């Protein structure tokens, strides 16, 4: 038992040196940029370096609703062109419904509706009432797609603001986590990612009289939209056709610009969008084309002549900043669904620095006290335990750096706690040795038995703590997760140092001299 094979000694030393080696970058944090990517200091969490954490929810119900509305519009067009009379066409819950009053038209209507969309199941209920429901898979896919697209667009928008090293990742089904290191006021970013920025061009329905508009009466296929804040000199409400003539998806570029000394946003369509825009303007000269952003009409100019170049301007009552933001949003693309901020946590650089300082001070004091305590209690062997403790700290720091883990303030607490608990394994071993020696065993025998008997208890005790740490990691978020990581690594490394490193030192001590009694 008290014999170490050469390779084992080599392995223990190699692991200790590796821990030391990978901790080094933390001492030269200032030059981290010049170090290779596999040899970096541990990443500091947002609570230490300062920064902003946002948890966003994608309102995916909106995309499902939109898809149903589109379904209703295409059903309307199909039924009309087939001259089938219908009543009660609209969205109900998660399906679209329509009733065909004439019995002889129902079969044909059923066929037409079934052909509208593969992702829709049509059921013919009693009395000519048809229910068109999106299949479960189709809805799931649509929601999923909306979240994926939202992540891409949020990334583009955040990148455009020049934030360094943002992290944008999906959480669960419909959520997005945005982490912005170094950002201490995320208001502008929240404003930017909180806007859907869906740009659509609709024709204004000029059949609706001002009286009807005020009373809110519209023919089917037409809806009333409010004017946007920036709308310059237009009416407060517009009756526009629901049909989207050209959508902002087709934009390839948008820039802030000036027209007649007024800030405007100029935009350019891709080829398909450009020709569509050309055709719409060609066919509707003299009508009003509403420029609609997020359901609000910015302006509705009269189409004086066909616009065939595929580009145009959006004018309104804009400030220069507003045209810059709008152009940025249009370039990055529209969000498929609105985003809501569910959670926001921002730590300013001042508090972060204070936390690092407090954490470092607490760690240092804890370390000094534990060192004094161990040496006072166990003398030479206590000193060995202290060496093992320092190696343990290097291993912990090295492992955190190597794994690219994030050190948070609770993570620092985890390190402090590890220091307290790391010596526990040594205390167990030393106490057991003392006990065996008192029971009359020889020096060699008590040391050997001490290690062997204590080992069982050490494993059981540490595995149970590891179980708790594992669940903490699974259920925790952000800083708490960081705590679980440091605690887990600390438990594993402390078992290694207590059992292997201390034993190596004790064995070496035994071999180097003629010892008769346990020095503790």
């Amino acid at each position, binding site marked *: 038992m008290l014999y170490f094979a050469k390779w084992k000694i080599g392995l223990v030393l190699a692991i200790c040196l590796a821990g030391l080696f990978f901790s080094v970058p933390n001492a030269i944090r200032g030059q981290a940029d010049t170090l290779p990517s596999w040899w970096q200091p541990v990443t500091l969490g947002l609570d230490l370096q300062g920064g902003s954490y946002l948890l966003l929810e994608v309102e995916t119900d909106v995309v499902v609703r939109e898809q149903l509305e589109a379904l209703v519009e295409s059903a309307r067009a199909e039924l009309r062109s087939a001259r089938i009379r219908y009543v009660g066409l609209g969205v109900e819950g998660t399906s679209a419904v329509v009733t065909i009053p004439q019995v002889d038209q129902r079969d044909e209507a059923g066929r037409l509706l079934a052909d509208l969309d593969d992702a829709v199941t049509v059921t013919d209920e009693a009395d000519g009432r048809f229910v068109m429901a999106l299949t479960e898979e189709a809805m799931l896919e649509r929601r999923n797609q909306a979240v994926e697209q939202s992540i891409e667009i949020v990334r583009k928008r955040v990148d455009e603001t020049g934030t360094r090293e943002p992290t944008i990742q999906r959480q669960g089904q419909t959520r997005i986590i945005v982490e912005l290191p170094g950002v201490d006021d995320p208001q502008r970013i929240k404003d930017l990612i909180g806007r859907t920025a869906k740009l659509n061009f609709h024709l204004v329905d000029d059949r609706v009289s001002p009286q009807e508009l005020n009373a809110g009466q519209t023919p089917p296929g037409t809806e009333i939209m409010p004017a946007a804040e920036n709308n310059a000199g237009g009416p407060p409400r517009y009756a526009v056709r629901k049909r989207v003539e050209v959508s902002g998806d087709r934009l390839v570029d948008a820039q802030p610009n000036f027209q007649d000394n007024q800030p405007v946003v100029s935009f350019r369509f891709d080829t398909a969008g450009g020709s569509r825009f050309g055709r719409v303007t060609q066919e509707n000269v003299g009508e009003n084309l509403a420029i609609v952003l997020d359901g609000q009409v910015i302006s509705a100019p009269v189409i004086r002549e066909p616009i065939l170049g595929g580009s145009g301007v959006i004018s309104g009552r804009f400030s220069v900043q507003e045209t810059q933001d709008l152009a940025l949003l249009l370039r990055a693309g529209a969000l498929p669904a609105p985003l809501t*901020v569910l959670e926001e946590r921002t730590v*300013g650089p001042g508090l972060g620095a204070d936390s690092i300082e407090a954490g470092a001070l607490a760690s240092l004091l804890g370390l000094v006290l534990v060192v004094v*305590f161990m040496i006072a209690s166990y003398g030479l062997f206590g000193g060995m335990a202290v060496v093992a403790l320092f190696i343990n700290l290097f291993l912990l720091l090295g492992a955190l750096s190597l794994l690219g883990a994030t050190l948070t303030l609770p993570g620092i607490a985890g390190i402090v706690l590890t220091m*307290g608990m790391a010596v526990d394994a040594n205390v*167990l071993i030393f106490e057991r040795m003392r006990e065996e020696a008192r029971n009359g065993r020889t020096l060699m025998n008590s040391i050997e038995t001490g290690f062997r008997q204590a080992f069982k208890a050490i494993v059981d005790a540490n595995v149970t703590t590891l179980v708790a740490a594992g669940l*903490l990691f699974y259920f925790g978020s952000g800083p708490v997760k960081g*705590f679980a990581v440091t605690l887990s690594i600390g438990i594993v490394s402390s078992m290694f140092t207590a059992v292997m490193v201390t034993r190596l030192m004790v064995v070496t001590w035994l071999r180097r001299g003629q010892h008769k009694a346990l020095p503790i």
Partner: protein
Amino acid sequence: MPRLINLVPVDTSIDFMKRRLHALVLSVVLMVAAVVSLGVQQLNFGIDFAGGILVEARMPAEPDMGALRDRLNGLGLGAVSLTHIGEDARDVMIRVQQPEDTTDEQESAALKAIQGVLGDSVEYRRVELVGPKVGGELIEAGIWAVSLSILAIVVYIWFRFEWQFAVGAMVALIHDVLITLGLFSVLRLEFDLTTVAALLTLAGYSINDTVVVYDRVREKLRKFKKLALVDLLNLALNKTLSRTILTSLTTLIAVLSLLFLGGDVLRNFSAALAFGIIIGTYSTVYVAVPILVYFDLRREAVAGEDPEAEAGADGGPAPADKAGG
């Protein structure tokens, strides 16, 4: 060689088990008190769980708190509290607890309004906004985490020991967690995510302590098949006493340095841990081990191969072990 400190007298033979009834009464009283307090005044949930807004800001100059409070109350956001925080007189903390039916959008708007009142020249040290939806989910996740970790630990002990030990460990764990929760409720300490982390850590710590003693109980059970259970448990407790005290002290030292120097953010976390270490050590000695008396520990089941029994180096239970402490 300098004399080493011996914090515990060697070879103690304290009769811990004699006081097990007193301890039982004390534990039951504390647990009932905890349940009553949790039932009557609940926990003082921080914004992590209750949802709401917390803003910690450094004003350009020491603010007129009365005027600032009036302006914040003028926003009509519900319960707004404004306090000084930390050592710098310019630092203020604003907490807003909105009614339960607040939507996430209203929450965001409220934060914007507060920032509007504070103006542009403040330095934001901390801004936290937790929407009502997330708050509820975090409570749920916290309950799951604590319950599952207790369960997982118990299953592990059952697997490694016998079911009686698993039951004892579970009772001790629930005892520790419940009384710590009760303390947070009685003292109205803020209960947030890091407190849950502290609860899980103290569960891990407490069980760590318990397992070490259980390990020794099992060892003694195999060795002394005829010794009365009460005496055997006393023996195991006395043999591990010095370790129990030493480890609790080193860990407590580390945690106390966190409590006093770790800064405001970690204060509740360290307080929960410090209390947990004390209660965890107590529960090992006076809950987890005495409870074994009430079970018929089938010695045959735990008696396995044990080389130490044959080695016979152990002095065996001295008569002193049976003497009162």
